């Protein structure tokens, strides 16, 4: 299997809220730190990427974030304008204006046209070799197949014309596992894992794009080893708790200390319970992901979970997980 960062086009998807943007941003940072020229693109322009890098608001025109690292936000209208300019040699924006407006309606009407402008722009960047690696902070699992299957769908609907030839070369890039791959992100919870597995099962059949990696995000550390957990249970018992409170308070054990010890013990219980619940889902993920697909683990970040510091930490962990 082609190593993750040796590919040219990576889509990062997952259920909403699992940390797609953070991971896409971190993959970009990692690729750049390995000497590659990387472009990270947010498919839905909401400013999440500029928040992650704490850079100015990204637009259609790629913004240099740091050495070798570029960021952009998708804009279908700008993409259309660029497409028309490049493919049909329509000269000025002024003349494209009304056509773009009409096209907007056609795009609304004909599903896939909008998506094809998004995916098309990314494939074009790959084809023109403007970057070594293009990373897409893509749509959520629910919308992802629709987005990525658009070239296939359009290819079936449209038999001739410029769009047809465009989808032809796009499909060539998308369906080549040496060039293109999908990273599915899941947190150790019921629905994110379900959606990840469902998408993993449908991905290749419906879009022709290969699964490149599955990333388990926000994995809680194990609080205690096996024997220690037994000790914790004993500590959580009434008599041991009282003893701890008494020891903490010195001779005159106060009620306040007892309450504080209770709170701290209950907090540890919560941590254990959340971690244990997550572990079940991680097992499910591990057992269902095809053996040849790398499964990468990223820890829960108790410190800052957003912004450049977090992105750097995630990038470092990804590097370790990928053996870079």
């Amino acid at each position: 299997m082609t190593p993750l960062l040796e590919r040219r086009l990576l889509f990062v998807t997952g259920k909403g809220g699992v940390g797609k943007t953070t991971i896409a941003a971190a993959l970009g940072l990692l690729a750049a730190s390995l000497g590659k020229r990387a472009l990270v693109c947010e498919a839905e322009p909401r400013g999440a990427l500029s928040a992650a890098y704490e850079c100015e608001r990204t637009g259609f025109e790629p913004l240099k974030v740091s050495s070798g690292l570029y960021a952009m936000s998708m804009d279908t209208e700008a993409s259309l304008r660029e497409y028309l300019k490049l493919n049909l040699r329509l000269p000025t924006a002024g003349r494209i204006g009304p056509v773009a407006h009409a096209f907007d309606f056609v795009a609304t009407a004909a599903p896939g046209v909008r998506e094809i402008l998004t995916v098309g722009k990314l494939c074009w960047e790959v084809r023109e070799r403007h970057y070594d690696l293009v990373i897409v902070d893509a749509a959520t699992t629910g919308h992802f197949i629709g987005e990525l299957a658009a070239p296939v769908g359009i290819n079936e609907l449209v038999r001739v014309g410029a769009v047809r030839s465009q989808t032809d070369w796009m499909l060539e890039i998308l369906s080549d596992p040496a060039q293109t791959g999908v990273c599915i992100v899941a947190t150790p919870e019921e629905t994110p894992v379900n959606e990840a597995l469902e998408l993993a099962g449908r991905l290749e059949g419906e879009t022709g794009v290969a699964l490149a990696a599955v990333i388990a995000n926000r994995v809680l550390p194990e609080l205690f080893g096996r024997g220690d957990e037994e000790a914790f249970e004993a500590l959580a018992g009434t008599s041991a708790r009282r003893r701890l409170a008494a020891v903490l308070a010195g001779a005159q054990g106060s009620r306040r200390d007892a309450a504080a010890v209770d709170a701290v013990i209950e907090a540890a219980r919560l941590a254990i319970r959340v971690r244990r619940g997550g572990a079940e889902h991680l097992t499910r993920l591990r057992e269902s992901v095809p053996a040849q697909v790398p499964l990468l683990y990223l820890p829960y970040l108790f410190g800052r979970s957003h912004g450049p510091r977090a992105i750097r930490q995630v990038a470092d962990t990804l590097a370790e997980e990928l053996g870079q």
Partner: protein
Amino acid sequence: MSPQRASKVVAEEAGEPTGGRLERLMATKEIIVACGPGGVGKTTTAAALGAEMAARSGGRVLVLTVDPARRLADALGMGGLGNEARQVPPEAFAAAGVRPRGELWAAMLDTAASWDALVRRHAPDPATVSRILANPLYRNITGRFARSHEYIAMERLHELRAEGRYDLLIVDTPPSNDALDFLDAPERMAEFFGSGLLRWLVAPYRSRLLNLASRPFYQVADRILGTEFLKDIAEFFLLFQQMYDGFIRRARGVGQMLRDPATTFMVVTTLEPAPAGEALRLAGELERRGLQLGLLVANKALPASFEEPDATRVAEQLVRHSAELAQAMAEGTTRLPAALSDPARLARVLAGVGESFSNFRAVAQREATLLEELAEVHEVAVTVPHLARDVVDLPGLLEVGRHLFAPPEGARALPARRSRGGRPSGGSRADAPGGDASRPPRDAPKDA
């Protein structure tokens, strides 16, 4: 399963508990639209609110959900899918130890089936119906076109409301790239089908005459898409245009329904920066559109005990002095449990407990900051704690439901909404006397 205990919820105003305010809000509402960022438990919260309302009120409650987790769907008896609403059997409540006063119904949104029904209702004659259903673009549009889900969700809601079979409708909005897309969907649909541009686009296929003005466009479009595809599109819209009046009427109806005082929005979020930011944005958008945000639910909140100074001090001591503490515990007069007989192990466990507390405390503090920001926008707000297990069945839903109405001791307190003045809303905000009483300090009465 027991909820985390730690402290008492701060009564929102003048001693009135949040649960009571939610009860009063619900008493005047017939439609609840749940929205929020993805991955925050929106579907579960909507279902939980429905289950709890069915349990405590005498009416018929319908939860219209979009894409529930499979186990949750099974729990609600929706395993068979489809648009048909089904009642959650009272025995399921009985098994959960609850005797419901009302009925809980659940339905799933089947986009394709709903579209077909819509076409049947609005098309002028059966011939048009079958031509539309047979058009190659039709399935494509209704199945894949993202906004069609949003449109159809509102359409279904309107229909259910008009049927008048339920006392309370709770609709879970589709997971969307933009969580409020569904609000614009009816209008955009109407606008689209009524646009002059669309008429202009399909005109040549109607008259078979290209006028001079449109020729350049067709030449370009031809080169991009090919004539045949354009023809398919044109035919589809010609057919669809016949339903235009129906669409317009319906879109207006949906708009009215959403602005009705009996409708309120529920924003669900978790207390992480990205979802909370999205929730704030949603709240602002709702306000801008003159829609009422009646309820804000902060899901999976950590208990307030993480911020208690005494507990924090203890946690720090456990980390710093684990060896000494373990030693001191071993030296007591009574014997420790066997599992704690090894001082090295005991020290390790004490340090681990302290460390874990400090870790989660950092998260809890971030949550607290976000809660303060969210306090700006809600009418009634509740937190739901991390529960012991995933919510996948009726007992789980009822537990979440109970948290919504009567937060247990230890649920994190939400500060009351700051008065911003001027905005009419359904949630009453009695003016409490004395200073800035609309906003009690976050950690006011904490110890139970």
